[in-house]
Protein backbone atom coordinates (compact mmCIF):
# COMPACT_ATOMS: atom_id res chain seq x y z
CA UNK A 1 0.00 0.00 0.00
CA UNK A 2 1.05 3.56 -0.59
CA UNK A 3 -0.51 6.74 0.75
CA UNK A 4 -0.07 10.47 0.85
CA UNK A 5 -2.48 12.77 2.70
CA UNK A 6 -2.69 15.39 5.43
CA UNK A 7 -1.69 12.77 8.01
CA UNK A 8 1.57 11.87 6.31
CA UNK A 9 3.31 11.46 2.99
CA UNK A 10 3.83 7.71 3.24
CA UNK A 11 2.30 4.77 5.09
CA UNK A 12 4.96 4.79 7.81
CA UNK A 13 3.96 8.32 8.83
CA UNK A 14 0.24 8.27 7.93
CA UNK A 15 -0.91 5.22 9.87
CA UNK A 16 0.60 6.11 13.27
CA UNK A 17 -0.89 9.60 12.95
CA UNK A 18 -4.28 8.14 12.03
CA UNK A 19 -4.15 5.52 14.77
CA UNK A 20 -3.18 8.11 17.37
CA UNK A 21 -5.81 10.66 16.35
CA UNK A 22 -3.59 13.40 15.01
CA UNK A 23 -5.38 16.33 13.41
CA UNK A 24 -4.65 16.75 9.71
CA UNK A 25 -6.98 19.71 9.41
CA UNK A 26 -5.47 23.19 9.61
CA UNK A 27 -5.62 26.58 7.94
CA UNK A 28 -5.44 26.31 4.14
CA UNK A 29 -2.04 27.52 2.99
CA UNK A 30 -1.90 26.69 -0.73
CA UNK A 31 -4.14 29.58 -1.70
CA UNK A 32 -5.54 32.83 -0.36
CA UNK A 33 -8.83 32.16 1.48
CA UNK A 34 -9.69 35.83 2.10
CA UNK A 35 -12.71 35.59 -0.18
CA UNK A 36 -13.79 32.10 0.88
CA UNK A 37 -16.14 31.66 3.84
CA UNK A 38 -14.25 28.69 5.26
CA UNK A 39 -10.54 28.78 6.00
CA UNK A 40 -9.53 25.23 6.95
CA UNK A 41 -8.62 22.15 4.97
CA UNK A 42 -6.64 18.92 5.18
CA UNK A 43 -3.75 19.64 2.85
CA UNK A 44 -0.74 17.47 2.09
CA UNK A 45 2.22 19.16 3.78
CA UNK A 46 5.89 19.27 2.96
CA UNK A 47 5.43 17.76 -0.49
CA UNK A 48 8.12 18.86 -2.91
CA UNK A 49 7.44 17.52 -6.43
CA UNK A 50 11.11 18.07 -7.30
CA UNK A 51 12.02 15.30 -4.87
CA UNK A 52 9.87 12.85 -6.78
CA UNK A 53 9.93 13.90 -10.43
CA UNK A 54 12.38 15.14 -13.00
CA UNK A 55 11.27 18.52 -14.37
CA UNK A 56 10.53 16.91 -17.74
CA UNK A 57 8.08 14.50 -16.07
CA UNK A 58 6.66 17.04 -13.62
CA UNK A 59 5.63 19.27 -16.51
CA UNK A 60 3.03 16.67 -17.45
CA UNK A 61 1.66 16.14 -13.94
CA UNK A 62 -1.07 18.04 -12.15
CA UNK A 63 -0.83 17.71 -8.37
CA UNK A 64 -3.51 14.97 -8.32
CA UNK A 65 -1.46 12.85 -10.75
CA UNK A 66 1.70 13.49 -8.75
CA UNK A 67 -0.06 12.10 -5.68
CA UNK A 68 -1.26 9.07 -7.68
CA UNK A 69 2.26 8.28 -8.86
CA UNK A 70 3.89 8.78 -5.47
CA UNK A 71 1.36 6.48 -3.77
CA UNK A 72 1.57 3.88 -6.57
CA UNK A 73 5.37 3.78 -6.38
CA UNK A 74 5.22 3.22 -2.62
CA UNK A 75 2.55 0.54 -3.01
CA UNK A 76 4.48 -1.33 -5.66
CA UNK A 77 7.74 -1.13 -3.73
CA UNK A 78 6.10 -2.50 -0.58
CA UNK A 79 4.41 -5.29 -2.56
CA UNK A 80 7.75 -6.49 -3.89
CA UNK A 81 6.11 -7.02 -7.27
CA UNK A 82 8.19 -6.29 -10.34
CA UNK A 83 7.33 -6.46 -14.00
CA UNK A 84 9.62 -7.90 -16.60
CA UNK A 85 9.14 -6.51 -20.09
CA UNK A 86 5.85 -7.82 -21.47
CA UNK A 87 4.49 -8.94 -18.11
CA UNK A 88 2.46 -5.80 -17.65
CA UNK A 89 -0.31 -7.05 -19.93
CA UNK A 90 -1.73 -9.17 -17.08
CA UNK A 91 -1.90 -6.23 -14.71
CA UNK A 92 -4.57 -3.52 -14.35
CA UNK A 93 -4.53 0.02 -13.09
CA UNK A 94 -7.91 1.29 -11.90
CA UNK A 95 -7.98 4.66 -10.19
CA UNK A 96 -10.67 6.95 -8.85
CA UNK A 97 -10.75 10.71 -9.21
CA UNK A 98 -13.68 13.04 -8.76
CA UNK A 99 -12.38 16.16 -10.48
CA UNK A 100 -8.99 15.43 -12.05
CA UNK A 101 -6.57 18.30 -12.57
CA UNK A 102 -8.45 21.08 -10.82
CA UNK A 103 -5.53 23.44 -10.23
CA UNK A 104 -4.41 23.09 -13.84
CA UNK A 105 -7.92 23.86 -15.05
CA UNK A 106 -8.25 26.79 -12.67
CA UNK A 107 -4.93 28.26 -13.83
CA UNK A 108 -6.05 27.89 -17.44
CA UNK A 109 -9.27 29.76 -16.78
CA UNK A 110 -7.44 32.51 -14.91
CA UNK A 111 -5.15 32.89 -17.92
CA UNK A 112 -8.02 33.06 -20.40
CA UNK A 113 -10.73 34.92 -18.51
CA UNK A 114 -8.82 37.07 -16.06
CA UNK A 115 -5.45 37.72 -17.64
CA UNK A 116 -7.05 37.84 -21.10
CA UNK A 117 -4.15 35.96 -22.67
CA UNK A 118 -6.58 34.23 -25.04
CA UNK A 119 -4.38 31.17 -25.04
CA UNK A 120 -4.28 28.00 -22.98
CA UNK A 121 -1.20 25.97 -22.17
CA UNK A 122 -0.90 22.99 -24.53
CA UNK A 123 -0.55 20.58 -21.59
CA UNK A 124 -3.81 21.72 -20.00
CA UNK A 125 -5.80 18.76 -21.35
CA UNK A 126 -3.24 16.02 -20.63
CA UNK A 127 -2.81 17.40 -17.11
CA UNK A 128 -6.54 17.88 -16.42
CA UNK A 129 -7.98 14.60 -17.60
CA UNK A 130 -9.18 12.44 -14.71
CA UNK A 131 -7.33 9.40 -16.06
CA UNK A 132 -3.95 11.19 -16.04
CA UNK A 133 -2.97 9.51 -12.78
CA UNK A 134 -3.80 6.02 -14.06
CA UNK A 135 -2.06 6.65 -17.38
CA UNK A 136 1.15 7.92 -15.78
CA UNK A 137 1.23 4.92 -13.42
CA UNK A 138 0.86 2.61 -16.44
CA UNK A 139 3.49 4.46 -18.45
CA UNK A 140 6.04 4.55 -15.67
CA UNK A 141 5.59 0.93 -14.60
CA UNK A 142 5.01 -0.62 -18.01
CA UNK A 143 1.49 -1.82 -17.27
CA UNK A 144 -0.28 -2.55 -20.55
CA UNK A 145 -3.41 -4.36 -19.35
CA UNK A 146 -6.75 -2.72 -18.49
CA UNK A 147 -6.06 0.84 -17.33
CA UNK A 148 -8.88 3.26 -16.58
CA UNK A 149 -10.35 5.74 -14.14
CA UNK A 150 -13.72 5.83 -12.46
CA UNK A 151 -15.33 9.11 -11.53
CA UNK A 152 -18.26 8.74 -9.16
CA UNK A 153 -17.67 11.77 -6.94
CA UNK A 154 -16.93 10.70 -3.36
CA UNK A 155 -17.26 6.98 -4.18
CA UNK A 156 -14.70 7.03 -7.02
CA UNK A 157 -11.92 5.20 -5.19
CA UNK A 158 -14.19 2.53 -3.76
CA UNK A 159 -15.74 1.87 -7.15
CA UNK A 160 -12.22 1.67 -8.62
CA UNK A 161 -10.86 -0.68 -5.97
CA UNK A 162 -14.00 -2.82 -6.13
CA UNK A 163 -13.66 -3.27 -9.89
CA UNK A 164 -9.96 -4.03 -9.58
CA UNK A 165 -10.74 -6.56 -6.86
CA UNK A 166 -13.31 -8.27 -9.09
CA UNK A 167 -10.90 -8.34 -12.04
CA UNK A 168 -8.23 -10.06 -9.94
CA UNK A 169 -10.72 -12.45 -8.34
CA UNK A 170 -12.17 -13.44 -11.69
CA UNK A 171 -8.73 -14.09 -13.15
CA UNK A 172 -9.07 -11.37 -15.77
CA UNK A 173 -5.73 -10.03 -14.54
CA UNK A 174 -3.03 -11.35 -12.22
CA UNK A 175 -2.54 -8.10 -10.35
CA UNK A 176 -3.94 -4.59 -10.07
CA UNK A 177 -2.75 -1.26 -8.80
CA UNK A 178 -5.81 0.56 -7.58
CA UNK A 179 -6.97 3.41 -5.39
CA UNK A 180 -7.75 7.07 -5.86
CA UNK A 181 -6.14 10.48 -5.97
CA UNK A 182 -7.41 14.02 -5.65
CA UNK A 183 -6.04 17.55 -5.36
CA UNK A 184 -9.08 19.81 -5.09
CA UNK A 185 -7.51 22.92 -3.58
CA UNK A 186 -8.14 25.47 -6.29
CA UNK A 187 -9.94 28.76 -5.71
CA UNK A 188 -12.76 28.16 -8.18
CA UNK A 189 -13.48 24.69 -6.88
CA UNK A 190 -13.42 25.77 -3.24
CA UNK A 191 -15.91 28.53 -4.12
CA UNK A 192 -18.19 25.93 -5.68
CA UNK A 193 -18.10 23.95 -2.42
CA UNK A 194 -18.77 27.13 -0.49
CA UNK A 195 -21.99 27.51 -2.47
CA UNK A 196 -23.12 24.06 -1.30
CA UNK A 197 -22.94 25.41 2.28
CA UNK A 198 -21.79 22.09 3.68
CA UNK A 199 -18.17 22.92 4.48
CA UNK A 200 -17.58 23.38 8.19
CA UNK A 201 -16.29 26.76 9.35
CA UNK A 202 -13.93 25.15 11.87
CA UNK A 203 -13.34 21.43 11.61
CA UNK A 204 -14.91 18.11 10.74
CA UNK A 205 -16.87 16.53 13.61
CA UNK A 206 -18.45 13.33 12.28
CA UNK A 207 -21.42 11.99 14.29
CA UNK A 208 -21.13 14.84 16.82
CA UNK A 209 -24.40 16.69 17.38
CA UNK A 210 -22.64 20.02 16.81
CA UNK A 211 -21.16 18.96 13.45
CA UNK A 212 -21.27 21.68 10.82
CA UNK A 213 -20.08 19.95 7.71
CA UNK A 214 -17.15 18.42 5.90
CA UNK A 215 -13.58 19.63 5.50
CA UNK A 216 -11.92 19.30 2.11
CA UNK A 217 -8.90 17.01 1.93
CA UNK A 218 -6.43 15.83 -0.69
CA UNK A 219 -4.01 13.04 -1.39
CA UNK A 220 -3.89 9.53 -2.77
CA UNK A 221 -4.01 5.95 -1.62
CA UNK A 222 -2.94 3.03 -3.79
CA UNK A 223 -3.13 -0.71 -3.18
CA UNK A 224 -1.51 -3.56 -5.05
CA UNK A 225 -3.97 -6.44 -5.33
CA UNK A 226 -3.26 -10.01 -6.34
CA UNK A 227 -4.78 -13.35 -5.45
CA UNK A 228 -3.95 -14.66 -1.98
CA UNK A 229 -2.45 -17.79 -3.55
CA UNK A 230 -0.13 -15.80 -5.81
CA UNK A 231 0.94 -13.48 -2.99
CA UNK A 232 1.65 -16.40 -0.67
CA UNK A 233 3.49 -18.32 -3.37
CA UNK A 234 6.00 -15.54 -3.89
CA UNK A 235 6.32 -14.87 -0.17
CA UNK A 236 4.91 -11.35 -0.36
CA UNK A 237 4.43 -9.15 2.69
CA UNK A 238 0.63 -9.42 2.71
CA UNK A 239 -0.99 -6.48 4.51
CA UNK A 240 -4.66 -7.38 4.25
CA UNK A 241 -7.41 -9.08 2.29
CA UNK A 242 -10.34 -7.61 0.39
CA UNK A 243 -13.14 -10.17 0.35
CA UNK A 244 -16.21 -8.36 -0.93
CA UNK A 245 -17.50 -5.41 -2.88
CA UNK A 246 -21.02 -4.04 -3.10
CA UNK A 247 -22.53 -1.10 -4.91
CA UNK A 248 -25.91 0.48 -5.39
CA UNK A 249 -27.63 3.61 -6.58
CA UNK A 250 -30.19 5.53 -4.52
CA UNK A 251 -32.06 6.44 -7.70
CA UNK A 252 -33.39 9.25 -5.54
CA UNK A 253 -32.04 12.77 -5.20
CA UNK A 254 -28.88 14.20 -6.73
CA UNK A 255 -27.46 15.36 -3.36
CA UNK A 256 -29.69 14.08 -0.53
CA UNK A 257 -28.86 10.55 0.61
CA UNK A 258 -31.30 7.74 1.35
CA UNK A 259 -31.06 5.00 3.96
CA UNK A 260 -31.87 2.12 1.62
CA UNK A 261 -29.20 2.87 -1.02
CA UNK A 262 -26.22 2.73 1.36
CA UNK A 263 -27.78 -0.19 3.24
CA UNK A 264 -28.14 -2.13 -0.01
CA UNK A 265 -24.47 -1.55 -0.88
CA UNK A 266 -23.36 -2.77 2.57
CA UNK A 267 -25.53 -5.89 2.23
CA UNK A 268 -24.10 -6.56 -1.22
CA UNK A 269 -20.53 -6.23 0.03
CA UNK A 270 -21.24 -8.71 2.84
CA UNK A 271 -22.90 -11.15 0.44
CA UNK A 272 -20.10 -10.81 -2.11
CA UNK A 273 -17.57 -11.64 0.58
CA UNK A 274 -19.60 -14.49 2.06
CA UNK A 275 -19.76 -12.61 5.34
CA UNK A 276 -22.49 -12.49 7.96
CA UNK A 277 -23.21 -9.16 9.68
CA UNK A 278 -21.74 -10.64 12.88
CA UNK A 279 -18.39 -11.13 11.12
CA UNK A 280 -17.91 -7.35 11.00
CA UNK A 281 -16.22 -5.67 13.95
CA UNK A 282 -15.36 -2.31 12.45
CA UNK A 283 -16.85 0.05 9.89
CA UNK A 284 -14.78 2.87 8.49
CA UNK A 285 -17.76 5.13 7.89
CA UNK A 286 -18.30 7.54 5.04
CA UNK A 287 -18.83 9.93 7.99
CA UNK A 288 -18.50 13.26 6.23
CA UNK A 289 -19.57 15.36 9.21
CA UNK A 290 -22.59 16.79 7.40
CA UNK A 291 -25.94 16.77 9.16
CA UNK A 292 -27.55 14.57 6.52
CA UNK A 293 -24.89 11.95 5.81
CA UNK A 294 -24.10 10.98 9.37
CA UNK A 295 -27.76 10.63 10.34
CA UNK A 296 -28.64 8.58 7.26
CA UNK A 297 -25.49 6.44 7.48
CA UNK A 298 -26.32 5.61 11.09
CA UNK A 299 -29.81 4.52 10.04
CA UNK A 300 -28.39 2.48 7.17
CA UNK A 301 -25.90 0.69 9.47
CA UNK A 302 -28.72 -0.07 11.91
CA UNK A 303 -30.86 -1.35 9.06
CA UNK A 304 -28.14 -3.79 7.90
CA UNK A 305 -26.72 -4.89 11.23
CA UNK A 306 -29.80 -4.76 13.51
CA UNK A 307 -28.70 -5.62 17.07
CA UNK A 308 -25.12 -6.24 15.98
CA UNK A 309 -24.89 -2.51 15.21
CA UNK A 310 -24.37 -1.91 18.92
CA UNK A 311 -21.39 -4.27 18.97
CA UNK A 312 -19.58 -2.62 16.06
CA UNK A 313 -16.91 0.01 16.26
CA UNK A 314 -17.62 2.78 13.74
CA UNK A 315 -15.26 5.65 13.05
CA UNK A 316 -14.75 8.35 10.47
CA UNK A 317 -11.11 9.00 9.71
CA UNK A 318 -12.26 11.99 7.64
CA UNK A 319 -12.12 13.80 10.98
CA UNK A 320 -8.34 13.60 10.54
CA UNK A 321 -7.50 13.42 6.80
CA UNK A 322 -10.50 15.42 5.61
CA UNK A 323 -12.75 14.51 2.71
CA UNK A 324 -10.45 13.77 -0.19
CA UNK A 325 -13.39 13.18 -2.58
CA UNK A 326 -12.22 10.73 -5.24
CA UNK A 327 -9.33 9.62 -3.04
CA UNK A 328 -11.42 9.31 0.13
CA UNK A 329 -12.17 5.60 -0.20
CA UNK A 330 -8.51 4.85 -0.88
CA UNK A 331 -7.26 6.67 2.23
CA UNK A 332 -9.94 4.88 4.22
CA UNK A 333 -9.07 1.49 2.73
CA UNK A 334 -5.51 2.03 3.93
CA UNK A 335 -6.81 2.92 7.40
CA UNK A 336 -9.14 -0.10 7.42
CA UNK A 337 -6.43 -2.57 6.35
CA UNK A 338 -4.11 -1.22 9.03
CA UNK A 339 -6.88 -1.30 11.66
CA UNK A 340 -7.38 -5.01 10.94
CA UNK A 341 -3.65 -5.64 10.88
CA UNK A 342 -2.95 -3.87 14.18
CA UNK A 343 -6.33 -4.79 15.73
CA UNK A 344 -6.77 -1.14 16.58
CA UNK A 345 -9.68 1.08 15.59
CA UNK A 346 -8.65 4.60 14.58
CA UNK A 347 -10.74 7.30 16.26
CA UNK A 348 -13.32 9.83 15.18
CA UNK A 349 -11.60 12.95 16.43
CA UNK A 350 -13.11 16.40 17.12
CA UNK A 351 -16.13 14.67 18.67
CA UNK A 352 -17.87 16.75 21.36
CA UNK A 353 -21.59 16.08 21.75
CA UNK A 354 -23.45 12.75 21.39
CA UNK A 355 -26.25 12.85 18.83
CA UNK A 356 -29.26 10.58 19.47
CA UNK A 357 -29.60 10.26 15.69
CA UNK A 358 -26.02 8.95 15.44
CA UNK A 359 -26.13 6.54 18.37
CA UNK A 360 -23.39 4.15 17.27
CA UNK A 361 -20.10 3.33 19.00
CA UNK A 362 -18.14 5.95 17.09
CA UNK A 363 -14.80 5.57 18.96
CA UNK A 364 -14.67 9.19 20.01
CA UNK A 365 -11.36 11.03 20.02
CA UNK A 366 -9.11 8.10 20.98
CA UNK A 367 -8.23 4.98 19.05
CA UNK A 368 -9.01 1.69 20.71
CA UNK A 369 -7.60 -1.84 20.65
CA UNK A 370 -10.26 -4.29 19.47
CA UNK A 371 -10.64 -7.84 18.24
CA UNK A 372 -11.76 -7.37 14.64
CA UNK A 373 -12.22 -10.21 12.19
CA UNK A 374 -13.85 -8.26 9.39
CA UNK A 375 -14.42 -4.65 8.44
CA UNK A 376 -16.35 -2.54 5.96
CA UNK A 377 -15.29 0.73 4.36
CA UNK A 378 -18.19 2.88 3.19
CA UNK A 379 -18.28 5.48 0.44
CA UNK A 380 -21.50 7.25 -0.53
CA UNK A 381 -21.40 9.84 -3.28
CA UNK A 382 -23.41 12.78 -4.49
CA UNK A 383 -25.57 11.39 -7.22
CA UNK A 384 -26.68 8.65 -4.84
CA UNK A 385 -23.88 6.24 -5.78
CA UNK A 386 -22.79 3.89 -3.02
CA UNK A 387 -19.73 1.63 -2.95
CA UNK A 388 -18.66 -0.54 -0.02
CA UNK A 389 -15.60 -2.75 0.37
CA UNK A 390 -15.37 -5.66 2.81
CA UNK A 391 -12.02 -6.63 4.34
CA UNK A 392 -10.91 -9.56 6.46
CA UNK A 393 -8.08 -9.98 8.92
CA UNK A 394 -5.35 -12.18 7.52
Amino acid at each position, binding site marked *: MGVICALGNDLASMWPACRDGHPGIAAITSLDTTNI*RYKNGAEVRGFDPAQHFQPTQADFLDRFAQFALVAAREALASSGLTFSPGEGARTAVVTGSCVGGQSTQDAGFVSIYQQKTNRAHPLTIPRCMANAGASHIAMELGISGPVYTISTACSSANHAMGQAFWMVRSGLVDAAITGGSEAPFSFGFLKAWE*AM*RIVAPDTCRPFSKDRQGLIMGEGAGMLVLESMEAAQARGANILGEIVGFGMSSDAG*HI*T*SPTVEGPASAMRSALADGGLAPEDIGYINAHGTGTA*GNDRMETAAIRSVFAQHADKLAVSSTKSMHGHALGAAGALEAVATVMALRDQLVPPTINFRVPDPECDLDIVANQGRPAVIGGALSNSFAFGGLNAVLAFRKI
Partner: protein
Amino acid sequence: MHAIAGETLTMSDDITEKVLDVIAASKRMPREQVTATSTFEELGMDSLSGLNLIFDIESAFDVSVPDEVLERVKSVPQLIENLKLLLAQKAAPPGLPQ
Protein backbone atom coordinates in the same frame (compact mmCIF):
# COMPACT_ATOMS: atom_id res chain seq x y z
CA MET B 1 -36.43 58.17 11.91
CA HIS B 2 -40.04 58.44 10.78
CA ALA B 3 -39.02 59.23 7.25
CA ILE B 4 -36.71 56.23 7.18
CA ALA B 5 -39.46 53.99 8.57
CA GLY B 6 -41.84 55.20 5.87
CA GLU B 7 -39.32 54.49 3.16
CA THR B 8 -38.67 51.05 4.58
CA LEU B 9 -42.38 50.26 4.49
CA THR B 10 -42.71 51.21 0.83
CA MET B 11 -39.52 49.36 0.04
CA SER B 12 -40.83 46.35 1.95
CA ASP B 13 -43.84 45.90 -0.32
CA ASP B 14 -41.53 46.04 -3.30
CA ILE B 15 -39.24 43.53 -1.62
CA THR B 16 -42.09 41.11 -1.05
CA GLU B 17 -43.21 41.29 -4.65
CA LYS B 18 -39.69 40.89 -5.94
CA VAL B 19 -39.03 37.92 -3.62
CA LEU B 20 -42.16 36.20 -4.92
CA ASP B 21 -41.03 36.87 -8.50
CA VAL B 22 -37.62 35.38 -7.77
CA ILE B 23 -39.14 32.29 -6.13
CA ALA B 24 -41.44 31.70 -9.11
CA ALA B 25 -38.53 32.01 -11.53
CA SER B 26 -36.16 29.92 -9.41
CA LYS B 27 -38.69 27.16 -8.80
CA ARG B 28 -40.05 27.42 -12.36
CA MET B 29 -43.60 27.62 -11.08
CA PRO B 30 -46.49 29.96 -11.94
CA ARG B 31 -46.22 33.27 -10.08
CA GLU B 32 -49.79 32.99 -8.75
CA GLN B 33 -48.92 29.78 -6.91
CA VAL B 34 -46.30 31.57 -4.81
CA THR B 35 -47.69 33.38 -1.79
CA ALA B 36 -46.04 35.48 0.88
CA THR B 37 -47.15 32.98 3.53
CA SER B 38 -45.87 29.75 1.94
CA THR B 39 -43.41 27.51 3.71
CA PHE B 40 -40.55 26.11 1.64
CA GLU B 41 -42.02 22.67 2.19
CA GLU B 42 -45.34 23.79 0.69
CA LEU B 43 -43.42 25.05 -2.32
CA GLY B 44 -41.88 21.60 -2.73
CA MET B 45 -38.35 22.76 -1.92
CA ASP B 46 -35.59 20.46 -0.73
CA SER B 47 -32.18 21.49 0.57
CA LEU B 48 -30.66 21.86 -2.89
CA SER B 49 -33.50 23.90 -4.41
CA GLY B 50 -33.40 26.00 -1.23
CA LEU B 51 -29.73 26.75 -1.93
CA ASN B 52 -30.62 27.64 -5.51
CA LEU B 53 -33.31 30.03 -4.31
CA ILE B 54 -30.98 31.77 -1.87
CA PHE B 55 -28.39 32.09 -4.63
CA ASP B 56 -31.00 33.74 -6.87
CA ILE B 57 -32.12 36.02 -4.01
CA GLU B 58 -28.50 37.06 -3.39
CA SER B 59 -28.12 37.91 -7.07
CA ALA B 60 -31.43 39.78 -7.33
CA PHE B 61 -30.88 41.91 -4.22
CA ASP B 62 -27.07 42.10 -4.28
CA VAL B 63 -26.72 40.76 -0.75
CA SER B 64 -24.83 37.90 0.83
CA VAL B 65 -26.88 35.57 3.01
CA PRO B 66 -24.70 34.13 5.80
CA ASP B 67 -24.98 30.42 6.66
CA GLU B 68 -26.42 31.15 10.10
CA VAL B 69 -29.22 33.24 8.55
CA LEU B 70 -29.92 30.53 6.00
CA GLU B 71 -30.44 28.02 8.81
CA ARG B 72 -33.27 30.16 10.20
CA VAL B 73 -35.11 30.51 6.91
CA LYS B 74 -37.70 27.81 6.26
CA SER B 75 -40.56 29.83 4.77
CA VAL B 76 -41.29 32.79 2.52
CA PRO B 77 -42.18 35.14 5.43
CA GLN B 78 -38.94 34.18 7.21
CA LEU B 79 -37.02 34.79 4.00
CA ILE B 80 -38.60 38.23 3.54
CA GLU B 81 -38.03 39.17 7.18
CA ASN B 82 -34.36 38.18 7.13
CA LEU B 83 -33.79 39.72 3.73
CA LYS B 84 -35.13 43.06 4.98
CA LEU B 85 -32.71 42.91 7.90
CA LEU B 86 -29.81 42.20 5.54
CA LEU B 87 -30.86 45.04 3.23
CA ALA B 88 -31.17 47.41 6.20
CA GLN B 89 -27.67 46.41 7.40
CA LYS B 90 -26.35 46.97 3.91
CA ALA B 91 -27.95 50.44 3.74
CA ALA B 92 -26.66 51.40 7.18
CA PRO B 93 -23.82 49.17 8.34
CA PRO B 94 -23.84 48.63 12.12
CA GLY B 95 -21.53 50.99 13.94
CA LEU B 96 -21.97 53.88 11.58
CA PRO B 97 -23.70 57.04 12.93
CA GLN B 98 -27.42 56.92 12.14
